[in-house]
């Protein structure tokens, strides 16, 4: 069903490259004005999906509906989607202003209107003074902003970004993420960004679409995907999760780290389960207190400043733990610790 807020409807899109299935029956509805991140490891089909939306690839089957209109067969230059490419693809033989003005020129916007729009965008990206510079004279962050301005200058219905921040160094990438999010909100443009960086996806997205092997594994708000991963792949891909064997369901309880734990589970009795526990949801206490919790040995410990990264061996399972107070409690490599897992933060899946 099409509602007024569904801006783009990806309806059963599949793509085959020869015998290789790059995308299998993708269904996705993208809300007007929302920021959607396609997240997944390389080769998961996220870039192919973006290129199909842009029109640079044709889908083997399925339809694309923009505001209810079928645009599947529309050539890319008629779609008018602004796109930022991985290589940024600025035109090296043009100045910054000419780059930003190119799409306007093609739309027959000339003279004063064009100059004003270019100036407006240069102000938005906070680079009002570089209009006449050649793009080769720009820094990485400036190029980034110019590429974004060039794509937004044409007031696109959809704003598409293909791993645009991957070439920047970590610090700059961080500030560009915030800037990009603010720009998107300011323009209110429906945005689809492809990334393999889960932190970037969490920073930017209203809706996170996690993909693997050409299929969508989960599509929800970032916090939901993080807290309630749909399957073990999503749990593992987002953040530092420990995937541990959870035995079989019996009497509404599972076995976690050799201890029974009651988990409200919709899985039937005798299903073999796997549990995901995030590294920051494990609490360590000095061993000794007989509270019935599992006991482990610290194998690795590193103080990272805001938190301490540990690896704890519990009954043969190596658990990653992020603790905020391990160092202050006098723990060290070799220490015996009680490992406490909050059942609320455990996700269980049927073992694959």
């Amino acid at each position: 069903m099409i509602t007024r807020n569904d801006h783009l409807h990806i309806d059963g899109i599949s793509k085959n490259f020869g015998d290789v299935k790059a995308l299998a029956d993708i269904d996705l509805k993208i809300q007007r004005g929302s920021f959607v991140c396609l997240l997944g490891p390389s080769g998961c089909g996220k870039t192919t999906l973006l290129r199909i939306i842009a029109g640079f690839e044709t889908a083997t089957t399925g339809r694309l509906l923009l505001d209810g209109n079928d645009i599947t067969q529309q050539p890319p230059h008629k779609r008018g989607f602004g796109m930022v490419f991985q290589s940024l693809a600025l035109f090296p033989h043009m100045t910054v202003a000419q780059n930003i003005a190119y799409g306007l020129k093609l739309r027959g916007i000339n003279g004063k209107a064009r100059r004003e729009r270019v100036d407006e965008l240069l102000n938005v990206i906070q680079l009002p003074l570089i209009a006449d510079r050649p793009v080769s004279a720009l820094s990485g962050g400036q190029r980034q902003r110019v590429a974004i301005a060039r794509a937004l200058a044409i007031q696109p219905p959809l704003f598409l970004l293909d791993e645009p921040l991957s070439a920047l160094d970590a610090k700059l990438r961080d500030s560009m993420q915030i800037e990009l999010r603010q720009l998107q909100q300011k323009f209110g443009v429906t945005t689809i960004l492809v990334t393999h960086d889960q932190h970037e996806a969490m920073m930017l997205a209203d809706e996170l679409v996690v993909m693997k092997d050409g299929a969508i594994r989960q599509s929800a708000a970032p916090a939901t995907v993080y807290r309630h991963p749909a399957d073990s792949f999503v749990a593992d891909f987002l953040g530092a999760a420990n995937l541990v064997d959870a035995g079989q369901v019996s009497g509404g309880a599972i076995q976690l780290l050799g201890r029974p734990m009651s988990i409200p589970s919709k899985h039937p009795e005798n299903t073999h389960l796997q549990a995901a526990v995030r590294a920051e949801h494990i609490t360590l206490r000095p061993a000794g207190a007989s509270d019935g919790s599992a006991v482990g040995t610290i194998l690795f410990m590193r103080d990272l400043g805001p938190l301490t990264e540990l690896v704890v061996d519990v009954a043969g399972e190596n658990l990653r733990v992020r603790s905020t107070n391990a160092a202050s409690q006098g723990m060290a490599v070799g220490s015996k610790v009680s490992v406490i897992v909050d059942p609320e933060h455990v996700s269980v899946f049927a073992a694959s």
Partner: protein
Amino acid sequence: MRVGLFPNEGGGSYRFVIMALAAIGVLISSLPVIIVTIMSFSASDNTGFPPQALSLRWYQEVIALFTQADGSSAQSVVDATLTSLLVAVIVMSISTLVCIPLAYALTRGDRRIRTGMELLFTLPLVFPLVILGIAFLLIAESLRLDIGIWRIVIPHIALVLPFVLRNCLGAMSGIHPEIEEAAISLGASPLRAIWDVVIPLMKAGILAGLIFALIISFNEFTITFFMYTIDVSTLPIWMYSRTVSSLDPSTLALSVFIIFADIVLIVLVDKLIAGRASLF
């Protein structure tokens, strides 16, 4: 301290060998130019070297050849020069017009096809020129058709295509497909994107190819020797017949003019392709 890339250990003997080899190379490649230039200033009637006395009389002779109508020779030097220039310009234009789309298609298309095509277009270079000349002559004669200037233009195109193609390919390979896609995403049709983005970025390579075509065609002798007729002949053919009939230094003076023009063009090529297209 930076380690010198120009080795000078062993009492500087490496350095000496390298310098000596370089000097021999420069000498061999520039010797003909130097001797021709010196002899063109000779005052004597023959081409004995070194000249006994110097004069500008052969330059005056060349200027006279171009300015005075020469009824006696079958084809005057003016006609030959004009034919040469016309051939060179046609060859230059056609080969470039062929190579730009070809380079685009080969770069964006299947890699295996590209390798095969490049090899195919390079064939005229490895073929002995004399055999190529005979082959083109056989083709032209079997046509039984007077194709005028094209009997020289067509073999020249075959000869310059590999050079022009290489330059265009070199220029194309530096253009990321995403740049074209960026233009298309902003609303340019695929052809418009090529015109607005690809062609301007290929410019240096295209110009280098143009100038190469011009120089190679203008100086071509071997194939043209088979193809020329009484009506259609080029400057190198004229110079050859003049040298055979009377070996006086006027052809040498003419050569100096051509060498000078070539050097100007080569310097231009060098400036254009600095860091972009490749010569070979």
